[in-house]
């Protein structure tokens, strides 16, 4: 199995979280909100392109907008190899962080 880059991991997890509504706009917003990383739009699209070529995600087009000249969304879903890859990456990180300060839960602010 190929190693996943950090950005690829973030995008795969975000696609997993969003389920059937995963496309570029909410993906970017979710990654920014949860991980605090502001990825450029180009990075999001390029990563999705690469992940699809690797066979980790699949895409399909939604119904087009109900207006003249309406455009369709391109939606993404994880494929089993993608699930396995991101799971393995996450578990690997958890094992590595065991017993270190990185494994301690984040303190809640009073």
């Amino acid at each position: 199995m190929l190693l996943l880059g950090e950005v690829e991991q973030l995008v795969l997890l975000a696609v997993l979280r969003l389920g059937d509504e995963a496309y570029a706009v909410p993906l970017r917003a979710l990654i920014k909100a949860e991980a605090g990383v502001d990825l450029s739009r180009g990075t999001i699209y390029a990563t999705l392109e690469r992940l699809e070529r690797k066979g980790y995600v699949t895409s399909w087009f939604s119904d087009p907008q109900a207006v003249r000249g309406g455009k369709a969304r391109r939606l993404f879903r994880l494929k089993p190899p993608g699930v396995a890859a991101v799971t393995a990456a996450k578990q690997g990180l958890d094992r590595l962080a065991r017993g270190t300060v990185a494994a301690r839960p984040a303190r809640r602010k009073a």
Partner: protein
Amino acid sequence: MRRATLFRAALLVVPAAWREAVARDLAEEAEPGGRGTIWCACQALGVGLRLRRTIGLDALRSDLCGSIRSLARARGFTAAAILTFALGIGVNVAVFSVIDRLMFRPLPYADPERLVHLHTASSVGSAPEATIDVMIGQRIFERARSIQDMAWAQASGFELLVDGFGTAPVKAGAASANLLRVLGIRPAAGRDFTADRERPAGGPSEALLAYDTWTTRFGRSHEVIGRVFDVHVLNRTAQYRIVGILPPGFIVPSSRLAERTDLVMVRHNRLADGDRTRPGHDTVAPVARLRPGVSREQAAAEIATLVAPLRRQFPEYEHERVTVLPLRQGLFFLYAPYLWLVVGAAALVLLVACVNLGTLLLARGRSRAQEAAVRTALGASPGRLVFAATIDAAILCVASSVAALLLCRWASTALMTVVPFEFRGFAVSALDPRLVGLTLAVALASALAAAMGPVRGLRRIDVLSILQRGDQGAGSARLRSGTLLLAAEAALGVVLVAGAAASVHSFLGLALRDPGFVAEDLHSVNLGLPADQTADKSTRVPRLRAIREAFDGMPDVEAAGVITRSPFIEDLPPETFWQHLGRSGREWGVSEDLFEAMGTPVVYGRTFTRAEVDDDALVAILSEGGARSLWPGEPVRNVIGRTIQTKGGNREVVGVVADVRVHPTLPLMPALFLPATAREIEAGWSSATLVALVKMAPGRSPDRALIAARLGETIGRVSVSSEPAVGVLAPWLERPRFQALLFGSFAAIGLLLAAMGIYAVAAFEVARRRHEVGVRMTLGASAGDIRRLLVRGAVLPVAAGAAAGLGLTWWAARFLQSLLFEVDARDPWTFAAVALVLVATAVAASWLPARRAARVDPAAVLRET
């Protein structure tokens, strides 16, 4: 409306598969934030470029891996292609590593555009040099307002022994004290020369040490700066203080190129003296810095005005024209035609290699056509196919370049032995960053050129016909391209082979030319006599006899004779006897046995007797050229018994000897030989240096210590040095030899590449016409008919190319002619022979595939189809 058009235009940058989704997403983001169409267009542009970069890089990686795998599978083709291109580019790497510093790399001086070189041109010794007469130089130095300062320099013209420098001789040059200031540079360590007027009289003189010598002999120790060294030249010793270290990469600005310069010794700047009132025979090679704002043309015009009165006043200057050239051009103009010819020939070899690579790629393109058809059917764009076709050539060219660079680096020592000595000091390592960068750039450009053929073929792909019937449809088009390339290769090959034939012929003519003496085992022993006895003429005979007797009975000495100056040096003023007659010539004093030692035949009459030499009898010997010069039109034998008037009186000509020609390309000088003790001979005696020419047993050298010891017992302390006569001749043959070797190698490489290209095209032709061959043999054609058919197919384009190449050679001959010796670059017999060689190569290279084709089983071929 316009903004919408702008957004649509920006969306075109986005790959088609993403365009609709990106447009929808950007529209969704733009609305809530109140962002306009301009924002959408900018975002679309950014997203599109990023996507294309990602897809492009991935495609590049994919195509690269695919090409490497494909080339690794076709090992024979890959090896042949790398070898052929490595030959072509390796030749250029080797040539460029020598000439880059000479011709292209910026000179290591400050503001070099304001530096100029002044010269007429003269030939000094074995190395030509661009100089001007000292009197003219002084006039320019004194009065030229366009010139800020003038200096002069000479690269190493002599070898010295320097105490403390080790046993290897030191090559020393000379320069005026203001040289570095004129060049605008400072020493790497220590200080510059003291100005002439500030240097204290007496005491050690000054020298600058070369950076490489400082590194190799002194380990860059600063202790050497300020040290005083004893420098020995023949019987004289002088002291020099090292005052500084020259910068790394420093080039002595002298048109007399030298293999290396270890030491630059300061000399008085004669240009500043202003003391010449008459033309002399000494010259100087000045470097000048123009004043700011003054152009070279303005300086040349002013100098012509300053020199004009001297030309009117002195007949010696009547034809003198001072040339003002940019410094680089001035330093190397004596060699420029030769170097440009070498560059041209190397470029020709590269061109042949490119054409050959293109031919090989074209032949390989048969399998590529099917792959291209499949990829096109699956949706690949034409650009993607072109890129894939080009990347094969690029991988091959880069691999060849790396192989060539490593080979040149590994073989650099062997390569240097064939490079003329005056160029060796300028060579850089094959792994020099500039050279590596340039090689890779040339390789990639060559890859693009070589891939043109296969790329053109891809544009005419008929997908349906190829998938149904294979690539026969495209084969004929590819064949036409292949035959055109063959013809081009043949044309270029003719130029190379013709150049080689002329160069080899010229070199052999020089090498086999009779020099008038036997150089094998002949040694020139230079004797520095004690200075205190030289003024007394009564000591001439005893000293001469002491020198002759020192060699009597010496081990391995077969014959010896004495001459008042070395016959191998040309840079001497015209001799008194000939100058009196208004012509150039040479005059020597010789002992009675000199011609025997030299192996110079006495053509008519006899040589001197011992008594005639001892008594300074009024006799003389002439060379054949001398006899013809004095009595033109008369048979040489008739001069015996005639009288000539010399400064010492009327002398009877008792013998004529063969002309001695040391420098085969220079005009022959008439020569006069007098007894060594002749009253009118001053040279040699006045400078306390005589020369013994010694014929040794084969392979032996003179024992200098024994000679010095024997002479020490009779005439006092004598310094002794020797050099073999073949060493004197060698430099004159070095460049013709190099030229013959270079062009011969280029021609051999060109022929090899042409043969490989012909073989590849012939093999492709055989495969393509397999069915046709089967049908012909079924209908009754014999194996011989098939062979003739296929060989003719290869030979005809080569013959046509050779004919075109002969025309190209006719045009190019003018550039080669000046470098040939008594050979016509347009000799028709040479042309005919070269064309035959090319055709024979074509026959030989196409024979094997033709023979293979004639062995096919026609029934099996017909069954296949």
